[in-house]
Every structure is written in C-alpha cells, then in structure tokens.
C-alpha cells in the first residue's frame, strides 16, 4: 500500500462511494417486488440482499479489466479522469434516487467516463459504435425481453392456477420469489462489486502502484464488497417504492413471475454474450407482470418518467463528468474544488430527501406524507 498519492487516495475513496450508491440504488432490482408482495419484511429483504451481494463479491475471481468494456479508449487514462467520471456517476445516482427512479448505475458510470474522457482527450477517445452496441441496444432490448417473458409467465401462472385457492398458493409463490430475488442479488454482487474492484485496480495501475495486468489486492476486494453490501443494506427505499408499487400493483403470482423473468434474463444475457442492464431488465419484468394479469395496470406516467431518466443517464452523467474533468484538469486546487462540490451536492440531495423521507417503515404505504 506504499506510494499512494493523495489523488489516488481520493479516487479510491470516491470509487467506494460510487460502489455504495450502486448498492442502495440497485437494492430495488432484487427486493422491490419481494417487499411489495409481502414475501419478506423490508428490513429482512435488504439484509438478505446485502449478505448475498457481499458473498457475490467474493465468488468470482474474474475482475473487470476495463471500466467501460471498450466504450472509452482507456490507454493512458489519467487518474483525475477516473475521479471526474466517478463524480458524474455518483451525482446522477443520487439525483435519480431523490426522485425515486430506477436507472442503471453502469450507464451512469459509462456516461461520467465518456464526459470526462472527451474533456480530457477529445472525441477521438470515444468508440461510438460500442456505445450503440453496449448501451443503446441493450437499453431497448432489456425491458422488452424481460417484459415479454414476465407477461407470458404471468398469464400462464394465472391460467394454470385459476381453479385454486389464492390464499393457499400465496405462500408458495412467495417462497419462489425469494429464491429468484436471491439469485438477482448474488449476480449483482459478482457483477457490480467487481466493477468497482476494476476501477480501483485500474487507478492503482495508472498511479504506478500496481503493474499492468496485476490482480487486485485483497483489501480492494474486501472494501468493494463491504461498500456495496452496506449500500444495499441501507436500502434505496425511494426506488424500491417506485418499482414495487409505483409502476403497477403486484400480487404474489406476478411478483414471482417478474422476479424469475428478471433473474433468467440477467443470467442468460451475461452468459450468452449480450449483457443487458440489471435495472432495465427488472423494471421491464415488473411492467410485464403488471400487463400479464387480467385487469392489471401499468402506470405509464411513472414508466415514462423512468424511460426519460434512462435516456438522460448517459448525457447527464457525461455533462457532470466533463465539468468535473474541466476542474480537475486545472491542478490540485481543481481536484479539491471538485471534491468539495461533490460533497456539497450530495449533502443538498440528502437534505432534500428528508422533506419526504421514504424508509423501511412506510415503503409500502399508499401515501407518503410530506413533512
């Protein structure tokens, strides 16, 4: 751990903060439907998800070798650019959490990185084709695939079970839902905690602490796993509320169908070579399950706000990332100003969120009181 400069230290801390926001932003993916159908109590659900995220972080040894998977040319990437990218991603994650919209943490990170890289090295550092194949097409495909699968599965389960007592079967559906939610949490831990490990490792390599191609040190793995688990346990209740109740009303059958579809899509996509965003798959599955039940409704106003947020993720995080890079480029004082702005921005968002706090106590209420 020797020769860690101040800038490198700041980047590592910021990466862990991003990991933390990633955790609480994405708790909803695994647990929103589980909480809203009553399969698990809110606190139990986030605790289970946190543990599985932590386990997931240690499961796979294959750590992301790049941050963006080829979207940005990462050769000669400066440490300050990574910092600026993280600032953009964190602020966008916090902002979408404030308005309670699920959006992809990976896309926020890509956006921040694109903005910071363009500001640092110009447009030539961006691989436009990869943006289309890795971000745009998956963003369209994920909700469609997961939604269609969830719709068909919901129809099927209502059709097969139409002559049975719903009370007798609800317990079974809830058990099945917990299993699917567990798989989503585990997959999230392996994928997303490793992204942070990849960022820190890359920063250590650019800072000359590690040799290129080196494996992450143990402290990196442990801290990344712990940060994402803590974030998950904190619970992004605002987003959980939107996904579990805002998009549609879910019965146990639908919750089970949605969560199974999400888990299947995530696992199938990452192992058949066409990675789809976890958040977008889960949101799509929830809407699909809403459409699959007779008389089920999808609240399209909420869904539309969510789609808008997805569309804005890349450019918005990119703008913040570019602004942050513009400052950090100016030298050490610029880095200090950026760090101060990040802290101030996060504090403002947190204060705003207190006005109508959503916690584990009121996450499934019909109305949230504004105090």
């Amino acid at each position, binding site marked *: 751990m020797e020769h860690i400069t101040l800038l490198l230290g700041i980047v590592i801390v910021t990466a862990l903060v991003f990991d933390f926001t990633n955790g609480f932003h994405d708790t909803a993916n695994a647990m929103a439907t589980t909480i809203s159908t009553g399969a698990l109590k809110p606190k139990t659900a986030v605790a289970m998800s946190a543990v599985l995220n932590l386990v997931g972080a240690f499961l796979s040894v294959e750590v992301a070798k790049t941050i963006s998977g080829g979207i940005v040319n990462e050769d000669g990437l400066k440490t300050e650019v990574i910092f600026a990218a993280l600032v953009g991603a964190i602020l966008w994650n916090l902002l979408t959490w404030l308005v309670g919209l699920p959006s992809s943490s990976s896309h926020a990170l890509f956006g921040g990185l694109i903005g910071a890289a363009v500001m640092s090295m110009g447009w030539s550092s961006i691989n436009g084709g990869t943006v289309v194949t890795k971000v745009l097409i998956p963003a369209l495909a994920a909700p469609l695939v997961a939604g269609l699968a969830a719709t*068909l599965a919901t129809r099927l389960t209502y059709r*097969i079970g139409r002559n049975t007592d719903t009370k007798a079967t609800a317990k079974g559906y809830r058990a099945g839902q917990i299993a699917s939610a567990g798989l989503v949490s585990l997959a999230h831990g392996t994928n997303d905690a490793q992204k942070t490990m990849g960022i820190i490792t890359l920063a250590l390599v650019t800072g000359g602490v590690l040799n290129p191609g080196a494996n992450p040190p143990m402290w990196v793995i442990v801290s990344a796993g712990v940060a994402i688990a803590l974030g998950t346990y904190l619970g992004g209740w605002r987003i959980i509320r939107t996904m579990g109740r805002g998009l549609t009303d879910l019965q146990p059958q639908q919750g089970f169908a949605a969560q199974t579809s999400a888990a299947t899509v995530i696992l199938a*996509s990452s192992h058949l070579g066409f990675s789809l965003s976890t958040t977008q798959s889960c949101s799509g599955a929830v809407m699909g399950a809403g459409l699959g039940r007779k008389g089920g409704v999808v609240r399209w106003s909420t869904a539309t706000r969510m789609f808008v947020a997805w569309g804005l993720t890349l450019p918005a995080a990119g703008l913040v990332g570019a602004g942050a890079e513009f400052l950090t480029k100016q030298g050490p004082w610029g880095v200090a100003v950026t760090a101060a702005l990040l802290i101030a921005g996060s504090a403002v968002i947190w204060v705003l969120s207190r006005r109508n706090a959503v916690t584990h106590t009121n996450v499934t209420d019909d109305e949230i009181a504004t105090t």
Partner: protein
Amino acid sequence: MNIDWAALGSVFGVSLAVTVALVGLFTLGIIGLSKQETAAASGSGSGGSVALARTGAYACFALCAAAVAYGIYLIVA
C-alpha cells in the same frame, strides 16, 4: 459497429423459454401441493391420487431447485 444479433436473439429465446417453463413448473408444483392439502383435509380422494399429486409437486420443485443451482453455477463460473 458490429451488433451481435445472433447473441441477442438467443438471449431473447432462452430467456422467454426458461422463464415460462420455470414459472409453469413452479405453478404446477404449488397446485399439486394445495390439491393434496385440500384432499387430506376433507378426507376425500383416494390415497393414490393424493400421493401422485404430492410426488408430482416434489418433482416440479426439484426441477426448479436444479434450475436455481444451475443459476448459481453460472454466477460462480
């Protein structure tokens, strides 16, 4: 720009088939168990059909459990 339509297509197909199959299986299992419970509670129904419903239900759950195990294997591998 090179879009891997084949991979996207197979993701689509596999996700659809696996989700529907798993949810269907699980539903059959749940129904089997609830039928067996109602039959046992009312005392009606022959012993054979109750046992059959239960065995079928457990077979369905076993297949689902195998799918979950395969999912964990995919995550770890």
